């Protein structure tokens, strides 16, 4: 049981690492949104599923409710994260930022 929890948790941390490094390395604002908006969402999904499984270790009604709340956080983030990403992209487009193309200098 503990091994499965650790597996989920470490997979989530791996995707979090990808997100953080991607924010640092990518050349412009539009391409930085790719790791920020989505690798973070998947990392949160995996690590919170692992923590919900760990919370069910000592089974009771309260633990079941807490795990259901953790899953509720995951569902909410899955609905909210694309919307937030889309809002940021929309702000960039309306302000007139041009996307980076191949061969330009990084900003």
């Amino acid at each position, binding site marked *: 049981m503990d091994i499965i929890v650790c597996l989920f948790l470490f997979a989530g941390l791996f995707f979090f690492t990808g997100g953080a490094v*991607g924010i640092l390395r990518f050349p412009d604002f539009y391409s930085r949104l790719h790791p920020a908006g989505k690798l973070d969402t998947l990392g949160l999904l995996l690590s919170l599923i692992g923590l919900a499984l760990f919370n069910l270790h000592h089974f009771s009604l309260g633990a079941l409710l807490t795990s259901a709340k953790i899953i509720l956080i995951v569902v909410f983030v899955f609905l909210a994260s694309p919307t937030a990403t889309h809002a940021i992209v929309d702000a960039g487009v309306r302000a007139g930022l041009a996307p980076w193309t191949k061969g330009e200098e990084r900003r």
Partner: protein
Amino acid sequence: MNKQEQEKKSFFFYPFLATFIIMFGVWVLLSGKFDLFHISLGLISCAIVSYLSADLLFPSPKIGGLLGQWARFVRYIPWLMIEIMKANLHVTYLVFHPRMMELIDPRIVKFQSKLTSDLALVTFANSITLTPGTITVDVSLDGDFKVHAIDKASGDPLPGEMEARISKAFGED
């Protein structure tokens, strides 16, 4: 007159019931108490909220196709999960690649989608954004999509299979 009134009532009742069930489920989940006081408080406030906002959550009065549509939508989710996993691994590979700047090639892809209903368009746009490598930049009501793709491989397969599956899930063939 009488018939019209009855139509109006049935227009209202089923969305109210569905909204009420969803709201009450969330109430029980968040409060976690099962004594009489909290349950009755939840019943009253859920009734008020779903009376006010039933037509927001279910804009269509027809409830008949709704259950079948939800069943089809639930069958769409596992395919989306597998797709998200594959695409996430691709973006992680790009991030940790030492010569990342030569691999990526950002571009804006434009295409015309054949979906019509609002909910299907929103689901399609959110699915595109959740699939890494592509972000929806702009959607119009007619289905004109502008998508920012991070390299050629992730921008090419649009609209493709995802649109076909969503149009099947929302019954728009």
